[in-house]
């Protein structure tokens, strides 16, 4: 910090000369305040809300307060400078705003009433510890659930909570699935949690396709790389909405919402039919040549085949692998799951195979099966499903296949639908068919919250003796599920999140809190969010300008520090300190893990050193001192430590998947038993659902229409809740500067025809409603908004919606397939915010 901090003393009153003094009264009578004799500093920290932009900032501190914030612009690659946005630039509004938490609070009124009394730290901590202990004693420790929200924006402070939860054997929800940011097509197809190019790599793409990701707003600091990428290639945006990203694209391809799978399959068909695919790549790196039994739908195992069974004997492969069969010029052949050597396997073909039982079965390659599936996706049919122009579809498909590297961005809003996994699997066909994987500027990326952990955190997060009961958030909301605690979840311990706005699906959380089903709610935040309002104990935390932490998110793969520019305001204490104090009260035998001998700042720095030392290959050689000088690139296998997914797999022919933190490889690789990119899934449920290969399924059939067939008529608008330029989810909801930019109004965007049909005019206050709940907003007639859609910018605190939470409308659907791919702390069902039907009506003035 010292190196990056400029200290200078100011002399006499700025510029005021003696001559002017006489006229002072006439000049500046009412504000003669000078800034004499004050100490100023510039301190670098990292803006760390849940957008995971992790932009470096410099805070100018004047008289102990932050007077200005500006991008640090100190990334070694000039291209990454300046990183930051309007939210980060107005952060002082939250730090010094009216909702800032100042003291520990204990609830006095009814839940949600917002009535609290100020308590001392000891009192609040003792009280909380007492409640938690009683609940653990009565229902078992797994009745207490903590949520780990966005690891990458602060590994140190959050780690303290995870460590305590583990040591106390609590239940844990992962923010990734809680938020719906976990795109299940990734584990299904690539065996990883998720992957992405760093934004500097966008420039190396020759063709970029964005399927429903509003990067101009949701990846704002990186957006300029997209504009630059346009200069070297083309950028096509597939989105039902003419969003600002579509406005910046070379080409907008509007489709009906949730029909991306059909579009991608139609394009895949064009590419295959015209022979524009990279056969070499498909043969060596994908499951395309793998033989599938036509009778059972399962992939043919070498051990089942009479001619190959012998060869499998004694062949040692990891438990999570299988020996599948391909066909090549020499006949049947075992596919080595541990080495991706060239096999010259046939991509297409149908064969008869004799099994060890003597039975003969018909088999075909995955590609042959896929082509059969694709036969349904002719241009005309795809055009009918998607509403897009068949000529445009065909042209874009051909351009994409002939202008590689192809990069695809698959946005969160697009996969936060019930069949989002199918869409993702279909869309990933495009980069895979064109061999655009594992190369600079190539691949498919998801830029959701980026909850993916970037290095090994075990030493701090999961100490010896830690045991966590990972329960998907959706199971919590539904009140049932595989690891759901016997007595239910009785206590919520939260921080870094605002679930009472953001995850209050069908009003579940508020109902649980009101009914008393939830016996204790503890939240730590730096401002009085809706969730704090609903809590029993509220603990005031510092912002990222008031404490030490370590961040690593990935659009720019840097390790960076949060550093205190100012002292924590009022009585705020860092989370490390808070959870250490709770640990002392709850698991005194483990309190030593939290460096009790050090003050909270020194302890945080110690943890950073520990994490760097034990982080694995990604942090090798990186020290605290280096970070104090500025951001340092994480290591990666790709040249220049660039973030290029699957670089090793493709360049060094290593089996898929690469490991995903924090799980051991065995836990994740079991989903890619062939060691290759897999489009064919043969678990029973996939077969019974008919989803062994990607296909398009109609929206709402398995959800809204199923539970309420009348919904088809009653609720005619898709409720698409997308992210706002002016907020990071609910953070900055109360930012007065940003509220001014929004006319202080929540808005819902409607196609003018939809509005007209409902007698709604621009600016009218409308109610958005369905059977589950309601909310309100001002209607904006938006000619870029597709028919049948109501777009709402999520993240408003309930108080701006007359206490009608917008998530009272949504429902915690679970796609059963997602439950198969469960890995603790990594994978669980995707929350599908957009799978929600509503209608809109004017609220009479």
């Amino acid at each position, binding site marked *: 910090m010292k190196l990056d901090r400029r200290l200078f003393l100011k002399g006499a009153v700025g510029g005021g000369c003696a001559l002017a003094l006489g006229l002072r009264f*006439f000049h500046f009578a009412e504000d003669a305040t000078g800034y004499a004799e004050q100490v100023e500093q510039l301190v670098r920290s990292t803006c760390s809300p849940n957008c995971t932009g992790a932009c470096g900032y410099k805070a100018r501190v004047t008289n102990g307060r932050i007077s200005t914030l500006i991008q640090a612009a100190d990334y070694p690659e000039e291209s990454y400078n300046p990183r930051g946005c309007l939210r980060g630039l107005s952060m002082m509004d939250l730090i010094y705003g009216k909702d800032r938490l100042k003291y520990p609070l204990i609830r006095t009124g009814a839940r949600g009433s917002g009535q609290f009394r100020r308590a001392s730290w000891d009192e609040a901590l003792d009280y909380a510890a007492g409640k938690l202990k009683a609940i653990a004693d009565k229902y078992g420790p797994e009745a207490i659930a903590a949520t780990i929200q966005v690891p990458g924006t602060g590994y140190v402070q959050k780690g303290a909570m995870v460590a305590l939860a583990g040591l106390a054997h609590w239940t844990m929800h992962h923010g990734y699935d809680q938020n719906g940011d976990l795109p299940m097509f990734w584990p299904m197809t690539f065996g990883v949690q998720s992957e992405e190019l760093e934004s500097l790599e966008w420039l190396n793409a020759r063709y970029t396709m964005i399927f429903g990701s509003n990067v101009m707003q949701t990846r704002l600091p990186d957006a300029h790389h997209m504009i630059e990428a346009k200069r070297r290639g083309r950028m096509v945006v597939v989105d039902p909405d003419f969003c600002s990203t579509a406005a910046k694209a070379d080409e907008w391809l509007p489709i009906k919402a949730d029909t991306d799978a059909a579009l991608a399959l139609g394009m895949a068909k064009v590419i295959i039919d015209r022979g524009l695919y990279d056969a070499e790549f498909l043969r060596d790196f994908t499951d395309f040549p793998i033989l599938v039994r036509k009778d059972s739908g399962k992939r043919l195992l070498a051990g089942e085949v009479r001619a190959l069974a012998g060869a499998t004997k004694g062949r040692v492969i990891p438990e999570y692998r299988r020996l599948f069969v391909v066909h090549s010029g020499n006949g049947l052949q075992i596919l080595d799951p541990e080495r991706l050597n060239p096999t010259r396997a046939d991509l297409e073909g149908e064969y008869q195979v004799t099994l060890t039982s003597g039975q003969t079965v018909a088999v075909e390659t995955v590609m042959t099966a896929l082509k059969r599936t694709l036969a349904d996706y002719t241009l005309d049919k795809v055009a009918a499903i998607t509403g897009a122009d068949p000529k445009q579809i065909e042209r874009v498909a051909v351009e994409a296949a002939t202008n590689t590297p192809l990069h695809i961005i698959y946005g969160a809003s697009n996969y936060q639908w019930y069949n989002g996994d199918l869409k993702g699997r279909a869309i990933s066909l495009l980069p895979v068919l064109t061999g655009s994987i594992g190369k600079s500027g190539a691949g498919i990326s998801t830029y959701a919250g980026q909850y993916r952990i970037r290095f090994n955190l075990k030493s701090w997060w999961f100490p010896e003796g830690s045991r966590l009961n990972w329960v998907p958030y959706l199971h919590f909301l539904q009140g049932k599920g595989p690891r759901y605690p016997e007595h239910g979840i009785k206590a919520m311990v939260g921080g870094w999140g605002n679930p009472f706005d953001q995850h209050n699906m069908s009003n579940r959380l508020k109902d649980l809190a009101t009914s008393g089903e939830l016996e204790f709610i503890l939240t730590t935040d730096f401002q009085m969010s809706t969730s704090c309002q609903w809590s029993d104990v509220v603990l005031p935390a510092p912002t990222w300008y008031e404490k030490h932490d370590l961040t690593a998110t990935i659009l720019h793969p840097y390790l960076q520090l949060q550093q205190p520019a100012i002292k924590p305001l009022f009585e705020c204490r860092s989370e490390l300190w808070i959870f250490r104090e709770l640990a002392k009260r709850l698991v005194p035998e483990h309190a030593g893990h939290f460096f009790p001998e050090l003050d909270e700042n020194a302890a945080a720095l110690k943890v950073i050193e520990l994490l760097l030392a034990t982080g694995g290959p990604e942090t090798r050689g990186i020290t605290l001192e280096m970070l104090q000088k500025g951001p340092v690139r994480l290591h990666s296998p790709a040249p220049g430590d660039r973030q290029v997914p699957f670089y090793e797999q493709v360049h060094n022919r290593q089996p898929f998947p690469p490991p995903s933190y924090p799980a051991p490889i065995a836990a994740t690789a079991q989903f890619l038993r062939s060691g290759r990119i897999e489009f064919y899934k043969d678990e029973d449920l996939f077969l019974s659902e008919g989803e062994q290969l990607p296909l398009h399924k109609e929206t709402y059939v398995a959800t809204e229409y199923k539970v309420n067939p009348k919904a088809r008529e009653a609720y005619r608008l898709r409720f698409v809740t997308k992210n706002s330029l002016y907020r990071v989810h609910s953070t900055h909801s109360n930012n007065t500067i940003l509220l*001014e930019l929004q006319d*202080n109004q929540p808005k819902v965007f409607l196609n003018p025809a939809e509005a007209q049909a409902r007698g709604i005019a621009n600016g009218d206050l409308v109610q958005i409603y369905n059977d589950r709940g309601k909310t309100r907003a001002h209607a904006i007639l938006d000619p870029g908004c597709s028919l049948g859609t109501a777009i709402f910018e999520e993240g408003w605190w309930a108080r701006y919606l007359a206490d009608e939470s917008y998530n009272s409308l949504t429902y915690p659907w679970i796609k059963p397939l997602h439950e198969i791919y469960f890995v603790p702390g990594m994978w669980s069902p995707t929350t599908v915010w957009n799978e929600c039907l509503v209608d809109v009506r004017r609220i009479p003035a």
Partner: protein
Amino acid sequence: MSATMKNALRISGALFLIAIVAWLYQLKEGLVLTNLQNSYSWGLYISGLAFFVGNAAGGLVLSSSIYLFGVKKLKPLAKLGALTAFANVTAAMLIVLPDIGKPIRLYNMLLHPNFMSPLVWDVIVLNLYAAVSALYLYILMLPDLTGPLARFAVKVADPAGFSETWARRIAPVALLFAIGIHVITAWIFSTQGARDWWFSPAMAPDFVSVAIGVGTAVVLLAAALAYGTGEKYQDAYQTLALIVFMAVCVHLFLMMNDLVIHAWFGDAETHRIMEIAWGDFAWAHIFEVVAPLAGAWLLLQERVRRSLPRLAASAGLLIVGVFVHRFLIMPAAYNNIPMTMTPLGLPGVHWSLPIASGRFFPGLSTFLDSYAYAPSFIEVVILLGIMAYAVFLVLLAIAKLPILAKEVS
């Protein structure tokens, strides 16, 4: 002093005092107390300036008629004319004060005048005109400064002759400054290329014509109130009425001429202006045309001139009409945000860039692309107070000074 006079003085004096208190309060709180905002930066106060400046023309009309054009029958009204001129021109300067954010710094006009600024010219001519009308009044009064007032009289051999000679000499100068205040006040608006509603060469001559009309009507009204509508003055009144009528006609001609040219050219900008002027403010515009015309026409009627109530009502109608005309200087200039453009790819669309209002109300919009201004209570109070000041000054002068012709008083 009559009881009516006393009451009139009390009321107008009290109103003026209230306005001063209101202004002090506004000084303390800021112009936030007005209903102005960034996109609508001038309102009632500046309309008031234009109004008072116009009213101040009466002195000019009389002096030039008498001494340049030899209309002798107007002579008894000359002092009254000079007095109303002085009262109105000082009111015009006063009404600017509450519009100034930092009036305490007005000394900067002396220390650092920017001679490019029409406002500086205006301040100069207004001051000169005030000085000249005061001087002129003084010279006209000179022969009558007797008794206790004698100590104010300059010692000259033949006060009447002196007065006559100098009145004749000052008249052309006064005419120059009088025309000057209208022209230059008009230039403040008509030089603003940013505001198409104002940006017109017709504005200055129009200001002059309005001023001749309304200034004369003010003198006519004052005279009728002071002297009554007796036969003795009918000749003079008729002449004044004729001047009023002709001036109003010229004014309407200039105004229409300007409108026709604007409307004929018909670019998008003018369309919007016309929409505001003849849409939102249609009734006000009809009134600003009809009221002065009707007032002037009525004054031409002998029946009207012979009845004090009728004359007063007609002159009042004209003055109110002109006041509305002055108020309407603003809306079509400010309701239409000047930064308008045709966005790329949208020919035919005319779009105004919203402006930050500069006024913060939690929960309301900061950025506005249109704003309907109506003066706030304090603005009205201050304007009325300044009007009261002018009345007060005239009444006081009439009460204390030899303003009225002797045979009447």
